[in-house]
């Protein structure tokens, strides 16, 4: 498995290909569409991450010290970003997840979506992912 740093670098490279915001958003939307649909059984109140604009569901699983995340959102753009976060943080060791700076979000120009003001659930999702990793250290 590639390291978090490697995957982040990979994503940054992918985004460098885009000339304008439209291509970028189209890509994110595609990512959102492609993200494996979360099984309805996981869309529980417990797995729901608060965010009054769009909702995010997240489940986490620890298999021999490697953590897997499954997630979904009702909004496509949020879902696209969710897919990036899942790609970066899934199947990593708990400590690596806890330490992940997630700089790529800013580099690829999506920082605004990660502001706590967005109320799209992403900030809380990251917090939850890290908290889960921390609990599984």
């Amino acid at each position, binding site marked *: 498995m590639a390291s978090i740093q490697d995957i982040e670098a990979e994503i940054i490279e992918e985004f460098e290909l885009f000339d304008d*915001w*439209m291509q970028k*958003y*189209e890509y994110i*939307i595609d990512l959102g569409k492609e993200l494996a649909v979360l099984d309805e059984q996981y869309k529980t109140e417990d797995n729901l991450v608060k965010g*009054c*604009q*769009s*909702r995010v569901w997240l489940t986490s699983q620890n298999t021999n010290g490697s953590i897997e995340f499954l997630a979904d959102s*009702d*909004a*496509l*753009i*949020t879902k696209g970003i969710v897919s990036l976060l899942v790609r970066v943080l899934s199947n990593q060791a708990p400590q690596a997840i806890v330490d992940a700076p997630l700089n790529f979000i800013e580099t690829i120009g999506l920082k605004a*979506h990660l502001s706590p003001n967005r*109320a*799209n659930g992403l900030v809380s999702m990251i917090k939850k992912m890290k908290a889960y990793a921390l609990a599984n250290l």
Partner: protein
Amino acid sequence: MADTQINIEQIRSDFEILNQKVNGHQLVYFDNAASTQKPKVVSAAIADFYNNEYSNIHRGVHHFSELGTEKFEAVRGQVKHFLNAKYLEEIIFTSGTTASINLVADCFARDVLQKGDQVVISHLEHHSNIVPWQMACEKSGAELKVIGMTSSGELDYSDFEKLLNDKVKIIAINHVSNALGTINDIEKIISQAKALNIPVLIDGAQAVAHLKVDIQALGADFYCFSAHKLFGPTGVGVLYGKKEWLERLNPYMGGGDMINEVRFEKTTYNDLPHKFEAGTPNIAGVIGFGKALEYVSQISIENIKQAEAHLLDYATKKLSEIGDLEIKGVSDKKAAVISFVVNGLHPYDIGTLLNQYGIAVRTGHHCTQPIMEYFNISGTVRASFSFYNTTQEIDFFVEKLQKVIQMLK
């Protein structure tokens, strides 16, 4: 001008922000129901007051304290005139609509409502006209009753009639729905309530910037609104209350200005309106609000209404041509608000992409979750217009919206 009776070029130059660029595009501000922009006379008045005349008001014998008091109290007069209220002391300054409604709800919980009484609101209310009444009911043991809504986004008036009975101690209804734009028939509601002697509070937050309110003709007992939705500053609200009611209710907050005599054994309260205005008010905000009212009266609400009706018609027609787009709230009496959903698409996505074109719309539940629940949707995209908007802006918006829908499909 082609669009309206009013000189739109002139007017747009009064609102500097309309020249701003967002993401490389000229700002198209269609979030007026959340808050309107301010003509530059408003901020100029505030800055001038702070820089050249500032002082705390009431009871100061020095020059600037007197001047500030005069200016502040003159705005009370402007509001009285704006609403055509009978008495100056019926105008209470608060920090916003939400504060005005909470004031009445809390005073009612304490002074009026009893276990077994009922409070009537509607399914169309903003959270600010729901939660205070839930809290008041919890405190007093009264019961909350809700007038239903119809699929066109109107009040269910027959349901209202069924709810009328002498246990009802207050009816609280918005004048215009912020989520759907529906102009409610509050005249009908008030007259039916009057017949049973039930007081009525009108949440006028979405009405005052769009239509003429004559409080004496209406006969409402309370009327609440925010300056920031009427081209004025943030942090200023108005509570109009009928004199008899304001006299009957005890004060909401305690503090400076609202007392007559403070003794540890017994405190006596000041006369209206001060009885309900504890503490240093938002002096500069109120003075700025005075300028906004002056500005509005120059343009005239009648002209504003006309211009907005035109924009609403134009946009409704244009949007109706977009496949899969459904307008929520289709009453034939509407303020310039269009809420819509596009089949299968999330409002958040649409709003985010429109923003890339410099178009500001609001997305989400608009603080009206019960309405969303009624339609079984998580939210809408809401475009809300003000008289400074243009049909060109609507054209641009519709064009980009179609593009955005394509991207998301």
